[in-house]
């Protein structure tokens, strides 16, 4: 298991950590730029109806549906005027109470107005093709509300980051706060990048819950970072005169790495259970958090402590030059 008796060399291999982080982030950033150029919404990820407005109708089907069946469904929908609808199939593990749903067909259309009978038309078309299918979920968001939700999300994100900066600046030094926030940006960029790639290749769309996942990741990642920084602070008090800052960083990481890995592991275990055995609706949400937990652990152990060390080293060099 995780018995870290050897010193972890954060400082010595910092080029390695910088390269690793770059490799982790680059594909996602490329995907985000690609998305921003190509999507009509100019967003870095494929956004769901929560932010663009639209209607999603979901049908439970008692048989397994594959992609070929869907192309036929798409034609039918084009005929009744629901063109450019986006159709997705979710496979479901049937449970005791719910033997009748093997697949869920999810159809995303433009926002269906109250006056329109488009929903009934689509339901009729689907039920003609898939006998015994039933409408199990309807979600609808008006376009103006979508914009409003999007704005609120950005405000929430900004507030969360601001709150973290203030809190860490109060508890630690400002430079720790900067390092922690850079770590956050690192984690958020990675998760959004992964979802951007998933959006391009697997048509995964982000919704209101995705933002929740991002904010939770922020909380979690800060959590890990704080524990490491807390230890650096404590060690500085006891060994500040005997050891160099770099040595203290290494020692602190060595002392906290078991805790960081184990904590993330327990959170990861619970998330994995939710992902594999939980409901279909929260799958992407849980996936985002799983990715965030892993990358957050890496960043707080290696990325953030390395940044603090670089900063301190520069400060020391400057102080020397001044003398």
């Amino acid at each position: 298991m995780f018995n870290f008796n050897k010193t972890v060399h954060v400082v010595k291999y910092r080029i390695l950590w910088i390269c690793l982080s770059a490799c982790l982030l680059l594909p996602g950033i490329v995907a985000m730029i690609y998305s921003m150029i190509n999507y009509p919404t100019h967003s870095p990820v494929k956004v769901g109806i929560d932010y663009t407005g639209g209607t999603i109708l979901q049908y439970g089907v008692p048989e397994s549906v594959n992609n070929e069946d869907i192309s036929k469904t798409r034609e039918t929908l084009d005929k009744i005027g629901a063109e450019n609808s986006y159709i997705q199939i979710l496979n479901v593990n049937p449970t005791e109470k719910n033997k009748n749903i093997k697949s869920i067909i999810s159809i995303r259309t433009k926002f269906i107005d109250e006056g329109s009978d488009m929903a009934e038309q689509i339901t009729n078309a689907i039920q003609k093709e898939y006998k015994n299918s039933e409408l199990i979920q309807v979600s609808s968001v008006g376009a103006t509300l979508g914009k409003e939700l999007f704005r609120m999300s950005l405000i929430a994100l900004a507030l969360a980051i601001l709150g973290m900066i203030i809190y860490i600046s109060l508890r630690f030094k400002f430079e720790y706060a900067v390092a922690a926030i850079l770590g956050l940006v690192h984690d958020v960029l990675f998760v959004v990048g992964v979802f951007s790639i998933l959006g391009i290749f697997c048509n995964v769309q982000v919704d209101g819950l995705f933002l929740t996942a991002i904010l939770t990741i922020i909380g979690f990642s800060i959590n890990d970072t704080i524990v490491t920084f807390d230890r650096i602070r404590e060690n500085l008090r006891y060994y500040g005169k005997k050891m160099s800052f770099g040595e203290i960083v290494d020692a602190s990481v060595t002392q906290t790495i078991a805790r960081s890995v184990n904590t993330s592991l327990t959170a990861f275990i619970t998330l994995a259970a939710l992902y594999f055995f939980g409901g279909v609706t929260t799958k992407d949400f849980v996936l985002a958090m799983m990715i965030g937990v892993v990358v957050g652990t890496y960043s707080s152990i290696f990325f953030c402590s390395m940044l603090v060390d670089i900063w301190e080293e520069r400060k020391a060099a400057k102080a020397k030059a001044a003398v």
Partner: protein
Amino acid sequence: MKNKIIMFWVIVGIALACIFTIYKKPTKLGLDLVGGSRIMLEARTTDTIREITPEVMRRLQIAIESRVNKLGVSETSVAQVGDKRLLVEIPNVTDLKEAEAFLGKTALLEFKQPVLDANKQPQRDDKGQLMWESTGLTGEDLKSATIGSDQTGQWTVSLEFNGKGANKFAQLTEKLVGQQMAIIFDGEEISAPVIREVIYGGRAEISGGNSGFKYEEAEKMVNLLNAGALPVPSEIIQENTVGPTLGADSIEKSKFAGLIGVGLVMLFMIFYYRLPGLIADIALCVYALILFALFKIIPVTLTLAGIAGFVLSVGMAVDANILIFERTKEELKAGRNLFTAINLGFDRAFTSIFDSNVTTVLTCIILYFLGTSVVKGFALTLALGVIVSMFTAITVTKNFMHLIFGTGELKYPALFGLSKDEIGKGYEATETKREKARFGILD
């Protein structure tokens, strides 16, 4: 030691009280778990009502409430959100589109008279349609509406006006004898019968024009008329309806996933931290009991996202114990005696635990105030979880640790997952006298 035994019984008492509460009080399940509709309505201004005032919203809410009640399902709720929105929640809806159709209609019934030109002839528009103007008689003047049928067996809607309405209706029919009167429901002309004679007594019957009413049409109209018209039109801007099958499926799967997740975490703790791990697991059970009891007392409506928040909080609740045990192990390795190591583990880990939990609660607060209702559920359960875990992971675990290990020597390092060789080989700590006093370090 005496204090610790008292504390132990306090913890047992809290746990029992929680079990009692959980047993007695029902769980409030969200619409995504029991199935149902959550609909957000936004009030729209009209030519006559140009501003959505709190008074207009109050009237709209009453009208919508009375309609929702007409659906005949229990535990519905209509709540105002922001300045001009209403959130309608209707559990146990089986027909996914039914509720929506029922809410959207303004249900404004109007009686209109022809616009007359200078020669007292009805005017027609460019398309040859008769032009109508308001008479001031509306659905508000109704006492009640019922379903009836006429001589030919067609379904009709029978109207009974209230006193004022009956007078208005009599005057109107008197004026319009020989002419047509239009009956308009939600802007749609239902029929335009010719008035043959003055109608006294305040009773009238609407037939569905040439095609007649279907029974469902007549029934829906009667229900809407009796529930009252909306003061302003409202538009559905957000809707989420979950069928009962999906709801049942979600709850079953979440339960299963939650049990597996929590079970695995518990096994991990025992496997990695041995006896302290087992103690942490017991604290985790106390944690789950307190949290569930709180959910029922507050009450927190459990949603799918809320369950995810709860399960995640379990993963995070053991975080505090991991921090403490790691620290205790380190102190043991540094050659400290057992009692000191346990105390140091708790005291030194506390700042980390506190700092990291504050940031999580901070995020939850932001999510709670800015998020949608789904997000709110997640934020609330996670925040409650983190706060409760501060108590169980620190107070409960510390109490059990001291009761079990006492002040004696650590005879079996394996109980902490350590080997004998590791003891005394760790880092060297140098505390000041003051710190030694504060942490209760025994040399």
